[in-house]
């Protein structure tokens, strides 16, 4: 599904990621944890194709395609989805219009007929209900005046509608109260499928109580310094990120994370 090999990324000439190796198979959920400034969001944005996030070395293979040569919209149409840490407001553009355009862009690419307004509404209303969102959200401008929780749930709504092959969630849990967190987690769990992979980027272990990952990786200073099962997340929760630094003195960064 996704095969990241020795990925180096620089932002404005400043190296942020120093050789990331990661391998996600269909059906897997991976969590990437790490302290602030460790490069988690940089990884997410580089995978989504954000301009200014320059890949200086390495390769990324996504479903047999060379991801790094593809424009952001091509990546999306091939089934890569990034739930933004900070969803962007687009004044004057109705959420429903945005969602429908996005879905139809993907459907056209897949050789499927575009959904008409009726079918689309039926699809979207069902998802709204499950996410505890009011229908009025569809007719408001994209993210404009949304509460923090509404913005995050709107990201999940987009994800559920677009049904991506690979979903990357960039700190979707931050700023959510426990009820909203449960709703978001349920949404993500509904998407779990042998044909799909999910990459959860989070600072806290809390989200992982509701979405159980198959693998946990710890990112620090632009390198994956630890990989393990769910128990690694619990250790981080209990001990913080501090112990990693001491531990790091004795390991060669990234060595043990090769797939």
């Amino acid at each position: 599904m996704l095969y990241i090999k020795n990925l180096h990324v620089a932002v404005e000439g400043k190296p942020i990621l120093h050789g990331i190796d990661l391998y996600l198979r269909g059906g897997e959920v991976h969590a990437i944890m790490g302290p602030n400034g460790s490069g988690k969001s940089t990884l997410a944005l580089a995978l989504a194709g954000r301009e200014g996030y320059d890949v200086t070395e390495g390769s990324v293979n996504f479903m047999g395609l060379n991801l790094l040569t593809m424009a952001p919209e091509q990546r999306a149409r091939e089934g890569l989805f990034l739930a933004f840490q900070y969803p962007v407001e687009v004044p004057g553009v109705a959420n429903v219009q945005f969602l429908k355009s996005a879905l139809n862009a993907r459907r056209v690419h897949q050789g499927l007929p575009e959904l008409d307004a009726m079918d689309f509404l039926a699809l979207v209303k069902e998802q709204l209900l499950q996410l505890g969102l009011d229908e009025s959200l569809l007719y408001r401008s994209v993210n404009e005046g949304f509460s923090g929780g509404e913005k995050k749930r709107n990201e999940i709504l987009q994800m559920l509608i677009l049904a991506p092959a690979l979903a990357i969630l960039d700190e979707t849990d931050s700023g959510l109260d426990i009820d909203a967190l449960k709703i978001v987690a349920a949404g993500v769990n509904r998407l779990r499928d042998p044909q799909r992979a999910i990459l959860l980027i989070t600072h806290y272990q809390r989200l992982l109580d509701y979405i159980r990952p198959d693998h946990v990786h710890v990112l620090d200073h632009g390198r994956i310094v630890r990989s393990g099962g769910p128990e690694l997340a619990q250790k981080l929760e209990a001990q913080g990120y501090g112990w990693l630094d001491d531990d790091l003195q004795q390991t060669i960064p990234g060595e043990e994370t090769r797939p």
Partner: protein
Amino acid sequence: MNENTTVRDAVEQEYRWGFVTPIEQDTFSKGLSEEVVRMISAKKQEPDFMLEWRLAALRHWLKQTEPNWASVHHPPIDYQDMSYFSAPKKALKDLSEVDPELLRTYEKLGIPLAEREALAGVAVDAVFDSVSVATTFKDKLASLGIIFCSFSEALREHPELVRQYLGSVVPHTDNFFASLNSAVFSDGSFVYVPKGVRCPMELSTYFRINARSTGQFERTLIIADEGAHVSYLEGCTAPMRDENQLHAAVVELIALKDASIKYSTVQNWYPGDKQGRGGIYNFVTKRGECRGDNAHISWTQVETGSAITWKYPSCILRGDNSVGEFYSVAVTRNVQQADTGTKMIHIGKNTRSTVISKGISAGHGSNAYRGLIKVLPGADHARNYTQCDSLLMGAECAAHTFPYIEVRNPTAQVEHEASTGKIGEDQLFYLKSRGLSGEDALNMIVNGFCKEVFKNLPMEFAVEAQKLLSVSLEGAIG
């Protein structure tokens, strides 16, 4: 999105309406004098009062100098170096006599002239260079007492109405360009909607400049009698030429008691090339007067063309409880310049006005909003709300806002809001990351920005305006 490619690409796309129609035209030799004015008037077999009015305007114009306060720059205009009249040679009586070449021109432009367009439900008057070539649906409108015809015809058939209202909102002494227009205007549209009649269809005029070295000076006069309603749309294009051509139109609207007029413009004159060679100087005076109580005048404009735009569609709110509105989208790219806005003059009690202006600048475009809100002493409880937003694309464009507010009544309430923003990389990336192409993303953002204005356009024209905007900004991102 790379800003340099943005600017370069925005600059490089083509104007699609730039063709010339090969048609025999009767064009006056260059120059402006009393003799030329007399010739225009004679050509059109006008009544004496009209000739006198034109001559008075010319004499006044000769004493005036061109205004220079607008935030635009251009080389001096030589008013003796252009022709003041040009018309297709054949005289026309109805559609069947229209030169097929001319019909093809309007077809190319997508303007419905022939009967088959009856389905479109839009009555059209088309002005080709200086004369009106065809007016559709005249009979249907006449059955309701609505007069919709060329200005020349109105002078022949309804001289008393023209005489009563012409110059009553924009006098021939109003300003330099209005005086020039009053002296030499060759044609235009005339609308009269009688008492209590609601015009059942959109009325539309399509203006086309074809001939070289001509100015276009049309005059539009719309009168909505008591309780009448009318919605009117004008559109304009011109061939691509490397010379600048002057378009100095005057539009007067008169809404009597309980009447309403909605006037929409989609202006797409040739804007000149990327170095700024050629293009239309669009120096236009548009003003409406709510002459009776509870009258309502609404201006909506989408301005994407012209090398220079200088226009301020305004409302004189004389009647008590009358309402004036101005909704504008102005796009400038390459080296286009626009200085546009409105004047809302509150005279009557409880008068209300709304101004929504959206300026989009790309390339080296310069976009200024200039607006006056004036509340006179008698205008108790007058209210105005003004909102001016500017969107910048690239690093070399400019946006200015010049709001003037004059309030002489303590009960008045005037609000002004303004914002300036750059088109967000974040927004573009967000939409692209959902599978939208760069162009679709840009269109979505820009259309969102303009939504408050577009929603005031009649439905089919809102669609047109969105298309025009997307064509205007095509290739604007890399």
